[in-house]
């Protein structure tokens, strides 16, 4: 092999990438909070009126409740969902975080925080998704589309109307089991439509990168011991080949195929997160299917934020 080969991104190469990207990528002021810090909150776009935001906050907390770990309300999932609903009220629109690196794994600057400028095609597609077709002929080539803004507003208003009519209180003031009962009423079309989009959106906000406004203080990556985005540091060869918590049979495993003389690509970095290290994992029954990253990425994109579509694609809903 070439003795001059490099084994990891050199400083110069990474600098080139970092310098090359924002010049064309992010021509607009940053609208995202740095690294999920609450200080950035005011820069996020807003859409819903304050009372409905409170309703949404109560809803997301039912979808991912707080227990020994924070729930979706503490993760600011409602803020992230509202930011998507208001995506087009800021410039650039709040749709796609920037690239290539956050500042969580060795980069000096958080590129994620500088959102990308979508081109006119992407903007039309996302206006259609968020605002709906609104009777405009150029948006109704396949018939009318109900936008996310309408789905959230109507669903949240319905929850409040029913909370008032049936219990004489606002939805957030109701006890959790009563909130669940209303939220799970699949016979109520407005509430069912809300749940269809709100559960996937809450997952995105809770477990996604914090630059989108959720996953505050990285709560979604903490109790799950998820390392998050690890570029540009990556993993060292040692971290790839061997387990942090060695298994009883490791000595019997076939060795790695790589050249052990190869210089380690990155310094060792201990895992963080509350279940890192030797913490035992709770018991659970295996899922009925095996997952695959390749296929799931396509399934998730194809589901387009709809729980019903996701379940249809994974075969758990044949309706």
């Amino acid at each position, binding site marked *: 092999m070439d003795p001059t*080969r*490099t*084994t*990891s*991104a*050199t400083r110069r*190469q990474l600098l*080139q990438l970092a310098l*090359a*990207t*924002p*010049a064309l*990528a992010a021509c607009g002021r940053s609208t995202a909070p740095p690294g999920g810090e609450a200080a950035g909150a005011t820069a996020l776009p807003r859409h819903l009126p304050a009372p409905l935001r409170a309703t949404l906050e109560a809803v997301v907390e039912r*979808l*991912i409740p707080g*227990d020994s770990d924070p729930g979706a309300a503490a993760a600011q999932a409602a803020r992230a969902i509202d930011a998507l609903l208001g995506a087009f009220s800021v410039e650039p629109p709040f749709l*796609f975080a920037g*690239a*290539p690196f956050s500042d969580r794994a060795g980069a000096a600057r958080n590129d994620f925080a500088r959102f990308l400028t979508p*081109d006119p095609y992407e903007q*039309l*597609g*996302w206006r259609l998704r968020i605002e709906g077709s609104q009777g405009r002929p150029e948006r109704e*080539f*396949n018939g009318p589309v109900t936008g996310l803004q309408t789905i959230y507003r109507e669903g949240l208003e319905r929850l409040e109307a029913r909370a008032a009519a049936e219990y004489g209180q606002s939805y957030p003031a109701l006890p959790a089991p009563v909130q669940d009962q209303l939220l799970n009423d699949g016979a109520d079309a407005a509430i069912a439509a809300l749940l269809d989009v709100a559960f*996937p959106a809450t*997952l*995105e906000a809770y477990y996604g990168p914090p630059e989108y406004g959720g996953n505050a203080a990285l709560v979604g990556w903490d109790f799950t011991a998820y390392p998050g*985005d690890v570029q*540009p*540091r990556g*993993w060292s*060869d040692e*971290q790839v*080949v061997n387990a942090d918590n060695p*298994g*009883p049979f490791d000595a019997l*495993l*076939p*060795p*790695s*195929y*790589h050249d052990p003389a190869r210089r380690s690509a990155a310094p060792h970095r201990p895992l963080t997160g509350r279940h890192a290290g030797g913490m*035992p*994992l709770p*018991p*659970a029954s295996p899922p009925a299917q*095996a*997952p695959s*990253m390749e*296929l*799931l990425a*396509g*399934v*998730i994109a194809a*589901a387009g934020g709809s*729980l019903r579509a996701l379940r249809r*694609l994974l*075969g*758990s809903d044949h309706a």
Partner: protein
Amino acid sequence: MPEAIIIGSGPAGSISAWELARAGWTVTVLERGRNLRPGFGERPSAELGTLYSSDELKGARQFGFPHPLLEPITGRTRAEAEAGTARSVQGLHIQLGSAVGGTALHYNAKFPRFWQQDFHTLSALGPQAGAQVADWPIGYADLAPFYDEVEQHIGVQGDITRLPARTAEQTPGRRQYPMPPNPTGYAARLLAAGAERVGYTPYPYPAAVNSTGFDGRPACNSCGLCSGFGCPINARGDALVSYLNPAVISGRVRVIERALVTRIETRADGGRATGVRYLDAEGREQRLAVEKILLAASPISTARLLLLSASAAHPRGLGNRSDQVGRNLMFHYFTLGGAFFERDVQSLRAQSTTVEVDDLVGPFSGPAIQALGVPWIKGGLVQVGSGLPILAEAFFYAGLGIPHGSAHKQAMRASLARRRIAGIQFVGEDLPQAGNRVDLDPERRDWRGLPVARVTWSPHAHERAAAQYTAPLLEAWLLATPGAVGAVVTPGPLLGDAPQNTAHHAGTARMGEDPQTSVCDALGRLHDCPNVHVVDASSFPTFPGFNPTLTILANAQRIARAIAQQGA
């Protein structure tokens, strides 16, 4: 100098542009997607920026894909079609990416070759009822030099001294790969031990991912977020960095983004194409006249464009005299598997799938196969040692029906599908069928007002039999994996009749010698209109169970070189 138009800038289009430009041609590439690599066409590939990152949310928001509301595909199963259902699904299902550089921007870069036996399946194994099994009009030897050229140029890691004996025998004509294997993931090592226990031969998966510096771009640092993600550190060889960008910098190739080709025009007698019409980014109709057209839009879009190009001389669509355009659409099917562990096995912490197993490629025949109702089966390779990022895990549980609330959070805490699983994917060969096809949806339109592609597809009895035969073998392997406390195997064709969400597409414009049973000849020339060449996977007569991009590149380069050298 001669000129060509190439429709589609993915692997087939990019390598064709590069090859023609090298021979002095002037090339225009029309691409319906946008550019996502800042500096494209202006700076060397080692200095390009990227709009991609390790951001799962961008993938969930279909970044780099057609928008499902603006450019949907519709679909239905064969049974639904027979019952008169116009469509049962509409949106992004089974769609490939659309961007300058194509789906290879966010592919897995797995680079196995097809095997010698794959090019004459009909002669060697015989037909199957209800399928259009065919020999290729070319053999492995026609592709071998191009396999080698692509492997050396794009930069493939691997180790030919570790190839299993049968793999080496079936894929002769090799040099050592230009880079050694990347570190093998721990989860993959566990599964490799299991594979050896059941008598299989695991080996380092060839991949167009840098394990050392290559062509000025850095080595991969095993972040694990490959498939579905653009590489944020530029460590992956692909259509854009390895071919299209250098071709554009050469000055002979231009790429027009957001150019949606609406039809290929021909002379009145239909015998030669004269040019293409397209809608530019502003929606204005443009026309380009040219003597040579290369179709590289990928199987669904290539078939759609041929059908959209119907004229008085070609009333059923360009090149469709024999009614074969759009037919024989093939998707690899996947049998997914996972071994479960009591502890974290770090399956995401490695370049995406570092180990390959070829012991289930087949063919298999004999009483056990005949008992499943088919004369023979062909399988495919197994990708070994994959993991999941966290949002995919969360969506996976939700999609399996785990309800919101505490149940879902507990599933995330236990993390069986991410931290405690070592995954495998068996990539199965899908036989061509006349009824598995692309046509134009009679009602649904894209945002420009054109009919969208409709996909009618269901697996053949062969795929069900192959899935049934291989699933217990995969399960036995998983259970033999050291430390495994359980296993699950999910054979796609046995779960339902709709296609899985795969990015492996082929067929719709098969190549062959007989114009009655094929659309184009061995050089991709439409039998009915020979200055139009199909250079993408649309022309594959069959679809062996191997990741297809290497073969797409090699075959397109073979055709483009013939065009440049022989004026084919």
